């Protein structure tokens, strides 16, 4: 019953919306339509749609009628696992290690998710590319995205102080 889960998720989302709408502090300013009115309306509609989806799911669901979903096999957990690892690795590494290293690790893991066989080759592609992008952003456009370990080392080699 995956459709039921999707319906319940929407229902829960609507209820969270209600909770957050009720948590908006009451404003002392007078207004015909205050800051709470629209959130309440939106949450109410979302909850009603959630109820509708749950009802549709209980009557047999809609996935079975969609050819693309009905024909598809089970989810490819290996592939999703590698891709998820790539996203998590980037989130963890981008702070302490800097952009280039985090993005390279992400690139290699995502490429592996889609069946790339040579990790070494992916590193050789990704590292210069991400470094180039970093320099483009920081030196070319002046957008500071923070120098990590690798970027600082290269800047020092070039005789500049890392930002």
């Amino acid at each position: 019953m995956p459709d039921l889960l999707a319906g319940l998720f929407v229902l829960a989302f609507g209820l969270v919306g209600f909770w957050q709408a009720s948590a908006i502090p009451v404003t002392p300013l007078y207004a015909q339509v205050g800051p709470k009115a629209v959130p309440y309306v939106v949450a109410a509609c979302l909850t009603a749609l959630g109820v509708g989806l749950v009802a549709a799911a209980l009557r047999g669901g809609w996935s079975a009628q969609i050819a693309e979903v009905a024909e598809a096999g089970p989810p490819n957990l290996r592939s999703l696992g590698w891709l998820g690892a790539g996203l998590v690795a980037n989130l963890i590494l981008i702070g302490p290690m800097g952009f280039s290293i985090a993005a390279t690790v992400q690139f290699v893991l995502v490429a592996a998710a889609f069946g790339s066989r040579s990790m070494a080759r992916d590193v050789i592609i990704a590292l210069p590319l991400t470094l180039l992008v970093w320099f483009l952003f920081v030196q070319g456009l002046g957008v500071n995205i923070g120098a990590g370990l690798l970027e600082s080392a290269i800047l020092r080699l070039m005789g500049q102080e890392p930002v």
Partner: protein
Amino acid sequence: MEAINGLSLGFSHALSLTNLGWALLGCFLGTAVGVLPGIGPALTIALLLPITFKVSATGAFILFCGVFYGAMYGGSTTSILLNAPGESGSIITALEGAKMARNGRAGPALATAAIGSFVAGGVGTLGIAFLGPIIVDYALVLGPAEYFSLMLLCFVTVSAVLGGSALRGLTSLFFGLTLGLVGIDLQTGQPRMTFGLPELFDGVNVVLVAVALFAVAEALHMAWTHAEGKAQLMPVGNLWLSRADLKRSFWPWIRGAALGFPFGVLPAGGTEMPTMLSYYAERRLVAPEHEHEFGTTGAIEGVAGPEAANNAAAAGVLVPMLTLGLPTSATAAIMLSAFQSYGIQPGPLLFQTQADLVWTLIASLFIANVMLVVLNLPLIGLWVRILKIPTPQLYAGILVFATIGTYGISNSITDLLLLYGIGIIGMFMRRFDFPVAPVVIGMILGPMAEQALRQALTISEGDWTTFITRPGSLTILVVAGLALLGPRIYKLWARRSLVG
């Protein structure tokens, strides 16, 4: 005739070698930043502001306008090729453009976007020269009541992207409306839907959500359904527009440009509303034999129209800035501050006091427009090669690219969490056949509509009839009602007359 004299004066200045050089540099920079996600023309012009101390006013503004127009050209490229829109005006382009690219029609999609931009840029610039001051007078009559009605009209466009089921389509729309509510309420300063997290007080960036739902969710869904050991390459196909493509693109370009320009002139217009309306119009007006291409293999009309609307609206934005000193977009605001650093005050008198500068600027817009189409058409062959990258490296590259854009704007890991989290929701939406476009439309229109509604009711002292007693507002509401109910009534009537 004043405009024609002005233009010939303008061209005589703009065609000097230095000024052509500035225009070329601006076009080149603009195209480059347009391609990068997250970096838009506003930021680039802000970074270039210091040159106002060294360069003549004319040169600087030619450069800025080149960047501005160039970014509009470049913005569609990533939308079409990577399904990752660079700015909010090209989100709608991604809907059909990315589908065309997936089906071996990336070349025609990019070409129709570039030529559409050229046509619309030309129409828009003519509009600045001849119609600008007149339209502004009308635009200023519109109040919040009319804006709210305009947004209701735009909500009608959602029906074009709802997909197979109204229940699931509306769920997507309300998900978007909920995301749009996140952040500080502009009228009362109360935080809403933020779970008390200060990181969410600024709201959720709509480009971030579009990249998450289009690009990240697509990569995740590809992994979900990935078949091991099967290497797939995207077909690249023809690079250039066929005669049929050209014929199908022509009217969408014109309609898109005509829709876009007035919205750009509106003080609260922007590029999002006209692109949505143009998409809706093209979907309704498309020839029956091509109707099935919308949302499946990608219809060229759905790229040509919105892309023209986007560029014409961008040109329109310059009108209130020049004639009233009223910036209606972030980019215009920064250009206004550049005017001020030269001691020039844009406003009703600008066309008299600084005639040289204004007409040179307008002439340069024409020149930049020609330069851009000449620069961009040969680049199509190069861009399309991106699709020849093998799947593993292409999707790895798309995810890294999406990450850079998001992290580059804010330096915030919270935004990356949002990008990936919404991407995961998008993957499930795709699995359960929820359309993603209504989410983005809800996010853009929701906050604008709410503000307009509340302002209108504040002005009318709580009188809800203000929306139907003001003639402008009533007219727009009638158009919205016709757009929504017209086709159904027509069908009903046709069936009746068939039976009778």
